[in-house]
């Protein structure tokens, strides 16, 4: 029962925050210099006078700000985020087509960075002054400092010309489209480079985090007790210390999801991966504001969902939270 209550509270909180994002979007449209109608229509495509006039009425731009907010909200709630003149499609369907690609990329990168990062961190914590540990620290610093779009271009260069064994752009092989399982394999092949690029930055952060927390865990009293019980190191580390080390990692993973998403925009641009990030890049070029703001909203939804998932995983690992001892 307690869990259900918690989830309901989380959802209420999420809806509240997403509502705030919508209000933010609305304010941004009106705060931006220039005429909101232009913003909604987008300067580039379909900026003819009668379209602007139609938009004025549709969004009730002549009415009071509060009424406009109400009309904007009623539209958005029914899924009408406006119309993209450049792509000639309602914004919502445009985004829904692109979400899966971004999710593949972000989730692959997340899994890769958490798993590899934790492994590197945990192993190097065993012998903190050892050579391996120094190596991990150097990789972590380098991985963190390298701009993700630069590493992407490097890999593009490496696998594009020097060592062409991996596809370097797009999500599917346009020349020889495959179906069924081969199609999935094709996507995975295309996914390797972008997800690795995106994961590099976060592998660096998680390995540092795992290393520091594992070092602390190894000095904790309960690890000393475990050793005093004659348990082999594999259990002392694998069972007792590791699970405690995972808690901060899961917390950070939840918080980092927004950053992961931001990185995806850059990686998708480099590898022309047909996700929401690429859509943002195109919509900026064409000043397609409705799409831009809608992507911001949908990404907030995804980040919110990720937070709820990580919170549940957190409650799974740590019984103290589960029993309400917040």
């Amino acid at each position, binding site marked *: 029962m307690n869990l259900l209550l918690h989830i309901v509270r989380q959802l209420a*909180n999420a809806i509240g*925050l997403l509502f*705030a*994002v919508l209000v933010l979007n609305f304010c*941004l449209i009106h*705060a*931006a*210099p220039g005429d909101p109608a232009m*913003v909604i229509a987008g300067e580039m495509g379909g900026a003819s006078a009668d379209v602007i006039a139609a938009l004025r009425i549709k969004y009730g731009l002549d009415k009071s700000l509060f009424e406009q907010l109400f009309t904007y909200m009623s539209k958005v709630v029914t899924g009408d985020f406006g119309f993209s003149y450049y792509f000639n499609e309602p914004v919502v369907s445009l985004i829904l087509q692109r979400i899966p690609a971004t999710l593949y990329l972000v989730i692959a990168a997340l899994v890769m960075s958490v798993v590899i990062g934790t492994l590197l961190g945990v192993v190097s914590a065993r012998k*903190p*002054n*050892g050579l391996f*540990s*120094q190596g991990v620290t150097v990789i972590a*610093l*380098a991985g*963190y*400092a*390298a*701009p*993700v*779009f*630069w590493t992407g*271009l*490097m890999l*593009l*260069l490496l696998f*594009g*010309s020097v060592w062409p064994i991996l596809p370097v752009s797009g999500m599917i092989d346009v020349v020889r489209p495959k179906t069924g399982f081969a199609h999935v394999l094709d996507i995975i092949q295309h996914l390797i480079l972008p997800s690795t690029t995106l994961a590099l930055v976060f592998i660096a952060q998680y390995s540092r985090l795992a290393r*520091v927390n594992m*070092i602390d865990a190894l000095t904790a009293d309960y690890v000393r007790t475990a050793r005093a019980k004659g348990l082999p190191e594999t259990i002392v580390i694998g069972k007792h210390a590791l699970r405690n080390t995972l808690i901060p990692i899961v917390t950070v993973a939840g*918080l980092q999801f*927004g*950053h992961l*998403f*931001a*990185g995806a*925009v*850059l990686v998708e*641009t*480099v590898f022309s991966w047909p996700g929401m990030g690429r859509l*943002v*890049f195109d919509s*900026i*070029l064409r*000043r397609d*504001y409705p799409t*831009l*703001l809608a*992507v*911001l909203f949908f*990404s*907030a939804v995804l*980040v*919110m969902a990720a*937070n709820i998932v990580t919170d549940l995983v957190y409650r799974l690992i740590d019984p103290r939270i589960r029993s309400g001892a917040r």
Partner: protein
Amino acid sequence: MTSIDTPALPRDASTLPSRPAISPTLVALRQFCRSPSGVAGAAVLLILVLTTVFGPHFYGIDPLDLVDAPFTPPGEDAWLGTDYLGRDILAGLIHGGRATLTVGGVAAIITIAIGVTIGSLSGFFGGVIDTALVKITEFFQILPPLLFAMVLVTLFGQTLTTVTIAIGVVSWPTAARLTRAEFLRLRNLDFVKASRAAGAGNGHLILRVVLPNALPPIIVSATMAIGVAILFEGGLSFLGLGDPNTMSWGLMIGQNRNYVLDGWWTVIFPGAAIFVAVLAISLIGDGINDAINPRLRKRG
């Protein structure tokens, strides 16, 4: 002032250290100078800053004018080669560095200013203030920072100032969270209660008692914030959202993005510049981290 019925209280001065220790800040400074990563990072950053500040005097070429044929590989006339328009890459690096480093520095200051203010208030006072500020922080956290900044810059114009403010405004939650955690931890320690009992008001407690003790982790996150801001500015410029008429490293990469196969140097050198700058700053952050909690350093 010896008391009457008990012998004068034995002055256990013998067991007191004779020389007073130097202040914790000086100790931290000395530790920092001993940490190899800290010193290396500081040295590299100094070189970078010097080249961007004094570079133009020694290397007079203007980054915007066309020096040679496009995609001339690095050679005698253009040490680092030319880009897709034929502009000199080295000149671009020198002038670009100025924009990137200033944006990075100023944006980090904005981030820390907002973050520490919100974090300290919510951490120190708790209760309703804390819940409200945490909600605001949470709100900023669910918006992907780069995306949010892109929207702000697109709507409010692509100038250096809007870019800097946008970066600062979207990345303060990390600093806020860290400061709040530190204040929550320190607020319950007895020496804060003792100062309150000695007549300290909230202002004195926040600024003179809790903040100095919370500074070390804040300084580390401030250093990291500069690195993050530089990467951020690079990302925005790469996506064509930087200030179009000021040369910056990200812009150089963005403009030559499609020609990476024709001229690798057009992309590798500006990217390397960002990499070195952020690496130097992270090393400094690492050095400071070692200086403030030696316990970690002892274990490497």
